[in-house]
């Protein structure tokens, strides 16, 4: 059975696209047929983060408007063959995305994919609402600071009222993904503690992704950070994906590994 998962946050720049790319790639690495969709119309970014920007031909809006078939717009990832990307339009205005159009495309994708990961735009307006409306589950990306937590709370309100799942069941399963976690700043009291964020938002924790230079490196090269197993962020996303898929994995805050001399000399393959 297929599952539509929206990655959302309210606040901008907290790590939605980074997370959608990493989780999509992570699910695909586990063998699930996965597609990641960019819902951020006008600000195409997912293609860069996933490294397929040179191959974009058609986009989500072309498909909705009947200018291209879904099959033509899907880009196959070159690293993981179970992964595809549906890029958004760089040029159209946001109104080109319609609820009927989104429903039709998601319906077609459900026939082919196990997981459909929707990268939401920031905010709580129409674009964000369209990205969440047909979701079966939500991942709320939050940074441990007040404005992000506050926005996440508002998004949770929307998720539990303005989604089809909530209209049917009264509620939608939502997971908290805490990103840009900075142990030093939490210790010094500048950033909120995990327990405090959890107490306020009261949804289950999917993972804690540390602030990591590996994320910038990953976006520079267009390789979702989940491929970088030496980075704390990469491993945190792997664990989060495992939990999402139903495994129970101990919650730990991963740091970056420094490769040892042996590893540097002989590569990482044991």
């Amino acid at each position, binding site marked *: 059975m297929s599952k539509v998962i929206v990655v959302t946050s309210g606040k901008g720049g907290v790590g939605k696209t980074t997370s959608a790319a990493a989780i999509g790639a992570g699910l695909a690495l586990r063998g699930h047929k996965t597609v990641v969709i960019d819902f951020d119309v006008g600000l195409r970014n997912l293609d860069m983060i996933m490294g397929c920007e040179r*191959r974009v*031909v*058609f986009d989500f809006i072309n498909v909705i408007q009947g*200018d291209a078939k879904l*099959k033509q717009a899907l880009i196959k990832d070159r690293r993981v063959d179970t992964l595809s990307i549906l890029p958004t339009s760089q040029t159209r205005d946001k109104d080109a995305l319609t609820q009927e159009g989104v429903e039709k495309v998601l319906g077609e994708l459900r026939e082919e994919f196990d997981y459909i990961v929707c990268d939401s735009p920031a905010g709580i307006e129409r674009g964000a609402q369209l990205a969440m409306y047909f979701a079966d589950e939500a991942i709320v990306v939050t940074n441990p600071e007040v404005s992000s937590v506050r926005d996440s709370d508002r998004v949770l309100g929307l998720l539990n009222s303005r989604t089809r799942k909530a209209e049917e069941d009264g509620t939608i399963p939502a997971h908290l993904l805490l990103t840009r976690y900075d142990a030093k700043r939490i210790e010094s009291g500048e950033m909120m503690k995990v327990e405090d964020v959890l107490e306020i938002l009261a949804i289950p924790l999917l993972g804690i992704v540390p602030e990591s230079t590996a994320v*910038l*490196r990953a*976006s520079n090269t*267009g390789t979702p950070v989940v491929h970088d197993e030496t980075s704390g962020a990469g491993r945190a996303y792997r664990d989060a994906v495992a939990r999402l898929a139903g495994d129970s994995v101990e919650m730990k805050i991963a740091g970056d590994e420094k490769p040892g001399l042996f590893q540097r000399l002989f590569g990482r393959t044991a």
Partner: protein
Amino acid sequence: MKVFGFNFGARKSSSADTAKERLQILLAHERGSGAPGPDYLPLLQRDILEAIARHVKVDRDAVDIRMERDADLSSLEINIELPKRAAAR
């Protein structure tokens, strides 16, 4: 810069260099002079299909368009699956 066989400023190409290169290629296509408008591909596809349909009966779904943008040249690969017996009109 190479002086007396020494390669000054040579360093392992960093991920930031990769980022710059990727952006340059992409942006050259997005805003380059003489670059086709961003939405020309659906129109191109339609024109190609129309031209082919004048001679052979083809299914819209049997068209596969791939693009690969690069620094000096881009390629557009169009694959059209013709029906088994490409019946002329």
